[in-house]
């Protein structure tokens, strides 16, 4: 861990993510206003000591909305990646462990899924479902498991014939035991790295969907829909576009720094001494 954090980029990424998470968790304590409190007499006020990030078109405090929006954006990231990782581990493990026609079948499904542009697939699915935060998490999860599947399969293929696995098998260990106690723990690192990078892209997808009006629905705040609201006022209410844009940028950057740093640190070719 210490070695990890000695890399300045990882440290920055870690600090960014930790503080965003902290702010999201304690949002109700720090938020100066109710994020949905409308005040038509205080429309589009510029940032000041009363409203740190100004107010939006309905007089709502942007800072409070950003804090609550962080909860939504991050929750979408975690849950979606959780779903994707779970599916990816199961399918990747089956494919990599059993090989043969099961492997071929699963990998062809992966190829088919990868051949469809994910964002448009999500758009099409969301257009048929009610756009809600839960649907978005599920849909993002169900359309982004392919990378993890490939990763897990590749790890399993390479670990499958290693001595410790063959030894366990020779001792009579069942498939389930082999997979969960011998193979999976040894492939965790790449899974974690890809999950962290996956969160970054899930945050971006959620922002994109909300920006197009198909994501989190009003009046609930998410960074994406604060940004959309701001689009109309960009010529004179810059704070409505700047803050959510920056928040998305910094958070995604944070996850990427952390993920890349982890990958570097645990790369077997660079760290096996």
């Amino acid at each position, binding site marked *: 861990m210490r070695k990890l954090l000695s890399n300045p980029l990882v440290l920055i990424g870690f600090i960014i993510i930790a503080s965003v998470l902290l702010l999201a968790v304690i949002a109700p304590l720090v938020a100066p206003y109710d994020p949905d409190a409308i005040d038509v007499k205080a429309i589009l006020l510029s940032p000041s000591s009363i409203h740190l990030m100004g107010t939006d078109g309905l007089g709502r405090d942007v800072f409070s909305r950003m804090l609550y929006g962080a909860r939504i954006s991050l929750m979408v990231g975690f849950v979606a990646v959780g779903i994707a990782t779970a599916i990816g581990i199961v399918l990747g493990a089956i494919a990599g462990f059993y090989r043969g026609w099961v492997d071929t079948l699963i990998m062809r499904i992966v190829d088919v899924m990868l051949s469809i542009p994910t964002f448009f697939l999500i758009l099409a699915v969301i257009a048929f479902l009610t756009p809600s935060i839960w649907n978005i998490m599920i849909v993002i999860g169900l359309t982004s498991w392919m990378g993890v599947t490939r990763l897990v399969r590749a790890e399993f293929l390479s670990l499958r014939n290693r001595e410790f696995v063959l030894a366990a098998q020779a001792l009579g260990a069942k498939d389930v035991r082999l997979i969960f106690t011998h193979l999976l723990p040894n492939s965790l690192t790449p899974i974690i790295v890809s999950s962290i990078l996956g969160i970054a892209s899930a945050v971006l997808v959620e922002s994109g969907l909300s920006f197009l009006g198909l994501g989190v629905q*009003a009046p609930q705040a998410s960074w994406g829909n604060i940004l959309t609201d701001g689009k109309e006022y960009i*010529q004179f209410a810059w704070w409505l576009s700047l803050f959510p844009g920056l928040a998305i940028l910094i958070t995604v950057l944070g996850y990427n720094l952390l993920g890349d740093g982890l990958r570097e640190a645990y790369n077997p070719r660079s760290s096996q001494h």
Partner: protein
Amino acid sequence: MMQIKHNQLVKLGFIKLAIIALFAPFMIAACSDSSSSNQINNKIDYTKNYPPSNGGTLIDAMTGEPSSLIAMIAGESAASAIAGNIFNSLLKYDKNLELTGELVESWDVSSDQKTITFHLKTNLKWADNQPLTSDDVLFTWQKVTDEKTRTPYGSDFKLVTKAETPDANTFRVTYAAPYAPALDTWAGLHILPKHLLKDQDINTTAFARNPVGSHYYKLEKWKNGQFLKLTRNENATQGQAKIDNLLSRIIPDKAAQFLELSADNIDSMGLNPIQYARIFPARPDLNKNIALYKELGNSYTYLGFNLKRKPFDDIRVRQAINYAINKQEIIDGVLLGLGEPVASPYKPGTRWSNPDLKPYPYDPNKARALLKAAGYEDHDGDGILDKDGKPFTFEILTNQNKEREMTGVLIQRRLNEIGIKANIRVLEWASFLGRFIKPKEFDVVVLGWSLSLDPDQYSIWHSSQQAPGQFNFISYSNPRVDKLLEAGRLELNPDKRMKIYHEFSKILLEDSPIVFLSAGYGLTAIHKRVRGISNPAPPAGIGHNTYEWYIPSAYARNEMSEH
């Protein structure tokens, strides 16, 4: 000019573009401001007076491109806006919204009120020098009522049982029963030239992109996705317009239109409330060159209940929700004060609008009392009203329209205060209509109605108009309203008709099948080089006399640079 402009734009705007694109990819068009022409024009003094003169080009912007210039086929507003400068109707509305002749000198209504005889002006000509006669009118009527013509406007004209042309200047129609909106329908039908269309399929004819009309202008050039250029018709039936050319540029994004206006690349555009109330006051450089016009628009926003669903079949629930909504707050917050409350489906201040009616005041206590009378109370103490163990919660549906969405949020909050939990769902227009409105799969909608000038609203409120795809999708059914709407169609006397519709509006307000929310102002910006505009606008709006608008030659653009 467009070519050169484009290159400049790339250079000047690049740094700005890079910054903006980071946060709002949709604003890419934003880089076209600060062109050099702006600087030059800032030095021109637009306060001098000049007498009316001919010449010049008026450039405006429109968000959509017409699909065809035959209005009965196209059906969209972009098409009627352009086609209205090319084609004439038999009748028109004058600046006070009274019917008057356009192609006709006069018209008579028979004593049984079933037959209307139109007397055409003499020596009318099409732009291609062919005579315009009653034969053309008959031909147009045949086309609009032809089953093979794909038009949504046929039903009014199918009520005509007999159409005849006793001579070249007379056109006579007979209805089975008196039909009061008849004259209004003839004021909306563009007369088409028979000699060019008689052997053509009107749905697919090339005439739709190369029309020959009889009004002030004729189409000179149509460049797909870019502009339509109209030029003065020397054979115009209504005299000569002062401005030589009308150029309509197609710019889908309002923000991009605004930047074109600031850069003096267009002369006029419709503004949204933010541009009007927030951006303009902060830009003295724009105010120097551009005049703003404000007039009450022809539409209103409403909250409509699905009357087939419980509990919206209960008048007390509908009235309670009406009392619970603060309409002034919506006008202030969403329209930035640029609108008026409405209490009837007629434009305030017109003959048909009943001046005695007032919107439901904001009164949450009365709303609570009405809901209590309807059986809704908070029995389980969770802050949400309930009845028979079920909480009072429903979904507010609207389409992707920022103003309607904000309206929904304001309503949601007010309803929440009296213990009703409403969720908002915003949908794209096609699926909104197809999956929710047509099969009537909704609780409550926030939508708008545009108003015609005739008071007949049979298709919106009559109980017979509830089939999928018809306009009474809220399933409103009231025998008294049905009777009044039927009577209103048969009554040709304007004063008696007015009484009928005033009574109808009164019942409608009390019944509250919809909550009237607001009527927004139409906001227009026009460059000060354009003169002859009536301000304040008469009832028909500032556009009523565009043919009298003029651009003094001292202010004209450099015509050489146009293309």
